[in-house]
């Protein structure tokens, strides 16, 4: 059961898809340029394959939140990859700050992300809009999540893109291996946080996406290529904002762990920050996971449903 229903669909198949995705990205990258949208294709492939293996093919048109997220994320990944093939090659870089760091070059990718996130959020939270929220609540939730998505996009950009050069990121650290490990620990912690809500599926599909993120980082490590691009961080932001919103609103991810998980991603350090800053998001997620485990293991449950033991029975006051 463990192999057939969890490890194969949640880890092995996403890993195979991610390896195919990253190889495709590397071999189709134009000679003399950095890789293009390797992250989007790889993470999109691992998430998509994991989703289908765990939850089956979504109906078209999709009828519920995770299916809509699947369609948006996989379509975004494929389009990002296809468009990247037709972009002109980069010229030689002679200046310290790349053109992409200028506000004008930032506007296009950011606007594209805002449009995609603005489509994804109402699609994912359609049931809350229809059944639960007032118009004001819907506007506040959707607006707040969109603002969070934009801030996260900017944080991911500073974490993954800005001033990444072929030379070692930090003195004494070969290409920031510790930094990569801390980033992976952050996304693994995020998957664990989602999985400890009432729906195991959300944790598993975030875990499948984590496999893709790990493959991208490992491939970048071995090939000395810059694997993360604007489209890639847009896909990452769409994925975690969407899954987080679904986990909170539909799967009982309680407020404090949800806030800690959201804050953890905003604590991902810029490339210029010291390595220890990468511990902050890991610590925030460790607190979130501890809170979730503590709350579930303390619920009166004579059968210990979650296996977090020991079994607890609620005794009536004498």
């Amino acid at each position, binding site marked *: *059961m463990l192999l057939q*229903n969890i490890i194969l669909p949640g880890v092995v198949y996403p890993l195979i898809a991610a390896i195919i995705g990253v190889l495709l990205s590397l071999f189709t990258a134009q000679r003399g340029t950095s890789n293009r949208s390797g992250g989007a294709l790889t993470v999109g492939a691992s998430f998509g394959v994991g989703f289908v293996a765990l939850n089956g093919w979504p109906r078209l048109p999709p*009828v*519920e*939140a995770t299916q809509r997220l699947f369609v948006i994320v996989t379509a975004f990944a494929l389009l990002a990859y296809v468009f990247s093939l037709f972009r002109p090659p980069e010229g030689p870089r002679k200046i310290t700050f790349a053109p992409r760091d200028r506000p004008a070059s930032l506007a296009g990718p950011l606007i594209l992300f805002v449009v995609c996130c603005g489509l994804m959020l109402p699609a994912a939270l359609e049931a809350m809009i229809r059944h639960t929220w007032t118009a004001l609540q819907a506007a506040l939730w959707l607006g707040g999540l969109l603002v969070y998505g934009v801030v996260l996009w900017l944080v991911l950009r500073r974490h993954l893109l800005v001033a990444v050069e072929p030379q070692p990121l930090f003195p004494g650290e070969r290409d920031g291996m510790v930094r990569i490990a801390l980033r992976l620990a952050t996304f693994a912690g995020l998957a664990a946080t989602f999985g400890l809500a*009432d729906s195991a*599926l959300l944790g598993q599909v975030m875990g499948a996406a984590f496999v893709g993120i790990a493959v991208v980082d490992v491939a970048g490590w071995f090939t000395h290529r810059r694997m993360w691009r604007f489209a890639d961080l847009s896909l990452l932001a769409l994925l975690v904002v969407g899954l987080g919103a679904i986990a909170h*609103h539909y799967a009982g991810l309680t407020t404090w762990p949800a806030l800690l998980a959201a804050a953890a991603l905003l604590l991902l350090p810029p490339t210029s920050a010291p390595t220890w800053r990468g511990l902050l998001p890991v610590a925030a997620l460790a607190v979130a996971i501890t809170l979730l485990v503590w709350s579930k293991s303390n619920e009166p449950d004579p*059968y210990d*449903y979650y296996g977090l033991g020991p079994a607890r029975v609620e005794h009536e006051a004498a």
Partner: protein
Amino acid sequence: MIRPHRRLSTLLAAVLLATALLATALPASAATWEIDGLHSSAVFKVKHLETAYFYGVFGDVQGTITYDPNAPANSSIDVTIDAQSVDTRNANRDEHVKSPDFLNAKQFPTITFKSKSVEASGDDLRITGDLTLLGETREITVTATKTGQGTNPRSQKEMVGFHSEFTVDRTDHGMNFMAGPLGSEITFILSLEAQKQ
């Protein structure tokens, strides 16, 4: 001598008597019966780890039955079950069953069955209708057995009872989580008591 107003009242009485006689002479038309949620049960069973069936219930069952005892084929049924009311005798498991892994109750708050045609088969009714679970509507045919009919001593309303047991493949409705170890087939047991309106 009969006075005019006396003639009018005699005529009115004759018309009323004729109407009453006509009504009893015609076959009874299908009446609407409202499902009594308090005395109706919606139970389900699923096989756990290919070993034993475990049972759960839904606490909130509502709907209407249009039923004509003299012409059962004219009947129809419309049942709505509140997915949030699922009870498996364990609060943690209830939350899991309501989550997107299974019933996805916040996105799909109800499970419904609406009949499309009814055939009489002895004392049983063969009902073909649309079952909507997780937003996916599938046509199924179920057999309902009439379990009794009487009068409620408190409300003095007529009552009728039906029992039905049918199995659906949850993966047909997109409920794929752990299909295999947790049985793909869900058997629903509906015992409905309805009062004539």
